[in-house]
């Protein structure tokens, strides 16, 4: 799954399965364009940034995961860093296993 699909899926879930119209008024992107993006039209950089920003806002992230990960990697001890790496890796592996099911089921429902 590419970055575009990831961000759309996260946004869709965090917004609790909104309609195209709701997504349009939330992001300021035209309804027809939203429809196309969900049907895999390539996303422009500024559109990606809008969705990414909303995902961060909706998940209540005050600083980005990337910032926090960097700070942890330079501040925490080796074992604590290994713990975090292992935790993230397991989350990611599980997410990968779930992908083929969930994304396309969601896409079918909104398409």
């Amino acid at each position, binding site marked *: 799954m590419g970055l575009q699909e990831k961000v759309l899926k996260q946004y869709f879930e965090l917004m609790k399965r909104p309609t195209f119209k709701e997504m349009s008024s939330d992001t300021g992107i035209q309804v027809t364009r939203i429809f196309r993006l969900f049907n895999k039209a390539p996303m422009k950089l500024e559109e990606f940034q809008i969705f990414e920003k909303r995902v961060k806002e909706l998940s209540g992230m005050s600083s980005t995961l990337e910032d926090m990960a960097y700070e942890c990697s330079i501040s*925490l*001890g080796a*074992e*604590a860093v290994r*713990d975090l790496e*292992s*935790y993230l890796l*397991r989350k990611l*592996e*599980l997410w990968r*296993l*779930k*992908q*083929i*099911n969930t994304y396309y089921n969601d896409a079918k429902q909104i398409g």
Partner: protein
Amino acid sequence: MEKGLLLIERFIIESLSKKDMNIQELAIQTKLDHGLLLNILPNLMMRNMIQYKRGTYSLNRLEGQKWISQINKKEFLKEEVKDVFQSLVNNYFKEEVAKNSDLKVQKIWLTKDEELTFNSHLKGLENFFKNVKESRLRKAENERLFEQKVVIWGHMSYGDIVNEILEAV
């Protein structure tokens, strides 16, 4: 790179340790979606843990010694137990879901005598589980893996818990 199992992978391995199964039987045992099973099973096949023959999945017992000792390494088991704990805690504190789990945490100072009583209760609990397992070997129940209960217990001094937390950063 050496790696352990995700809990969901162990779930499937444990199902197949009861008997060989096709995908439908595995779905009944685990209550997992077919699509998800079809994502996980090839991974386990590539790691030589399971085999697929004429529509049936089975454990690769020929190479069992090798992969079982690998997945049961201390560092990998630790991660799986953490996942169990986390799932139990998350599920217990979920507000929107009807409670189908229980979690008790007690902080209590015990005298020597009380500690002996406590240890004997723990021993009683362990014996109970041992007896249940033995009775299943004598008379198998028609149980499905997803219906199994997962029970966790343990204890540690409050100070050691705090110290471990402080050391783990």
